[in-house]
């Protein structure tokens, strides 16, 4: 962790360029554990497809939805909305320094959505009927669930996937000089359509992240009054924005610590400032809504609902306070803790209406079964393993400029035999850039 301030004349912590994490093997003990978890989840999934949902999960007639939907989709895609929230700040509100975090945001979003959607397909009882998604006249346009299912799939498969292309193209460009003309042609085409793709990548998540909240509107009085409100869609969207900022910035900070990268406090401060504002704005809306509906009294009943509510409020406001304070004392530990706490609070909020604050009639309890938890963890492991693989093979993590040159010398002198990691081929690190241009 560097103590260099952002105003220093020679700023060697300024994030200028995304650089792959080099010098660490992809396959290590942690990666193998994740891989084993993923394999186990696939085996259990095969069993689930044959046996049905009953034998593998704790779901029942009263709690028709288990953690696969309520946690892996509703909560984790909120953490994975970075491409939406950070993207809007960077592209629409032109917080330009945040472009340094964009690749991290896009990657975490893509992985969270991909794993969530896969699990959504496994959670569906009759997934083969998903093919109706290509027949718009069969869509029930006013169903929040149709909106979520259709919009999420389209978003993850088209705009989000396309937004993630530049690092892949860049990798191909460095991989072999014969690919360059083709790659450049594709890139030119991509840039021409970028505004339309990016705009779709903000409209669609805005729609389905709010529709995730609208899902529980139809459940009416069975959702506790502290949560049930016509503002649910907006509150769900708001929670997704600050949670995803926490996920992107927090993950980047964690990566910087683990792989000993410099932290650009200018970018991190900007992200923390935006996150703190988002948290307090969201919390204000949430509390005002509860006050105006006259449901605040129920927060002082001695029951689990009040407990969950206060836990959520303390976590989000505590996280927001720590973020705000870290802007003044520049303690990265506090900033990281702020992100963790506020994201946890947001996760509890997104988890509550469907599960913690849901009281079906007749009264019933739901606790996920072991298999259910293992599958859920397996698909999270798949996302984490994918992340570890990709940041070590593609230029995702932001770094100061010297990191790129360090990488060049590292590979030139330490591992000259490497061919398959395209960046690291001798001579393609800028030193001979002018020569290759004139080829």
């Amino acid at each position, binding site marked *: 962790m560097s103590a260099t301030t952002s105003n220093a004349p020679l700023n060697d912590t300024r994030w*200028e*360029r995304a650089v792959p994490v080099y010098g660490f093997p992809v396959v290590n003990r942690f990666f193998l554990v994740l891989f084993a978890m993923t394999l186990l989840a696939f085996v259990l999934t095969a069993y689930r497809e044959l*046996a*049905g*949902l*009953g*034998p593998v999960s704790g*779901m*029942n*007639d009263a709690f*028709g*939805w288990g953690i696969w939907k309520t946690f892996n989709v509703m909560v984790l895609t909120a953490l994975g909305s970075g491409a939406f929230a950070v993207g809007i700040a960077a*592209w*629409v*509100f*032109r917080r*330009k320094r945040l*472009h340094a975090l964009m690749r991290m945001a896009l990657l975490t979003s893509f992985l969270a959505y991909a794993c969530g959607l896969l699990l959504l397909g496994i*959670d*569906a*009882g*009759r997934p083969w*009927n*998903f093919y*109706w998604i290509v027949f718009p006249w*069969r*869509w*029930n*346009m*006013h*169903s*929040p*669930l*149709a909106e979520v*299912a*259709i919009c999420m799939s389209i978003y993850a498969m088209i705009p989000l996937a396309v937004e993630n292309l*530049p690092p892949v193209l860049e990798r191909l460009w*460095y991989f072999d000089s014969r690919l360059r003309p083709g790659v450049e042609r594709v890139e030119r085409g991509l*840039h021409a359509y*970028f*505004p*339309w793709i*990016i705009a779709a990548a903000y*409209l669609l998540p805005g*729609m389905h992240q709010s529709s995730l909240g609208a*899902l*529980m*509107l*139809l459940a*009416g*009085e069975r959702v506790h009054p502290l949560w049930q409100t*016509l503002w649910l*869609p907006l509150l769900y969207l708001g929670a997704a924005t600050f949670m995803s900022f926490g996920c992107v910035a927090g993950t980047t900070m964690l990566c910087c610590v683990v792989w000993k990268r410099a932290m650009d406090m200018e970018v991190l401060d900007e992200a923390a400032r935006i996150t703190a504002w988002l948290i307090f704005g969201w919390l204000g809306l949430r509390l005002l809504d509860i006050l105006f509906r006259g449901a605040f009294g129920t927060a002082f009943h001695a029951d689990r609902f009040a407990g969950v509510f206060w836990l959520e409020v303390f976590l989000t406001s505590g996280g927001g306070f720590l973020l705000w304070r870290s802007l003044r004392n520049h303690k990265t530990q506090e900033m990281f803790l702020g992100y963790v706490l506020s994201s946890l609070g947001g996760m509890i909020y997104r988890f509550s209406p469907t599960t913690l604050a849901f009281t*079906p*009639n007749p009264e019933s309890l739901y606790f996920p079964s072991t298999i259910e938890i293992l599958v859920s963890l397996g698909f999270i492991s798949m996302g984490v393993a994918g992340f570890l693989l990709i940041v070590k093979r593609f230029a995702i993590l932001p770094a100061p400029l010297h990191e*790129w040159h360090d990488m060049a010398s590292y590979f030139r002198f330490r591992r000259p035999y490497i061919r398959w990691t395209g960046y690291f081929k001798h001579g393609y*690190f*800028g030193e001979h*850039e*002018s020569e290759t241009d004139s080829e």
Partner: protein
Amino acid sequence: MAITRRELISSIAKAGPPAAALAVCAGAQTLQAETIPVPSAAVGLLYDASICIGCKACVAACAEANNTEPDTRRDALHQAPSDLNDVTRNIIKLYKPENGSAFSFVKRQCMHCLDPACAAGCPFQALHKDPETGIVSWTSEECIGCRYCTITCPYHIPRFQWQGYNPRVTKCELCSHRLEKGQKPGCTSVCPTGAVIFGPRTVLLTEAKRRIKEKPGHYYQNRVYGETDNGGTQALYLSRVPFDKLGLPELGAESVPARTLRWQRRFYQYFALPAVLYGGLVQVIRKSVHGHVHEAQEKEKQTGLRAQL
């Protein structure tokens, strides 16, 4: 090059009029659509809990009429389902308060709401309301097994089959296959006391009101449950005990979908507002992308390293 005030104002000014126009027409359309039409040939059930003797003949008749296997899961001997489930579309339950005041049986099956929440939430219209008879039925070809209907139904009627690779959703479909043959639904054809009768909704409503008029004060609140509750249902209930004790919650006269999805529906009407929003986003982002690409190229010249976008 943060977004300038001039640009913000001019883009709002550009996007404003079309957005306002679309919002107005979208809002007006839904306002008209919110009065729920009663299907022309709406049929239904009238269940009078005060006559029901709890013999459960209707439960057996329902299983027979729908050719469902008997649910013997409780003692592996008798057909004794504990609640509605994947093979039980109709059930008789008993409400008996601890303090010894009036008890009542209740027959639970689909209410065939005039504005069904299950169909409002069903993503590909697997649950749909027949425009003529008003019967809410399920088709296997469109159902993705998301179980949203089990969450949305305020009466907790649709049940999901938890076993097997090809699960189905089970709910009362008013024996529509028997109606086609000119027969009455299974449950109404066997009821010994006439506690449950079948007929056109208007006729049943008149009959229910006649019974209330005959014995004022006999029925709870002198009211037919389902006349206006939840926007109106095609299964009507008379009872001596409060309806919410029988699993019929007080939902008000507005249907659950109309009440809760009002703004959702307006927002997505004709997809007009999202389209306007999209146009505005493209406008702003176009400028940002232009500036960003320009800056990246500048940086490429400075550092000699290929621009990253």
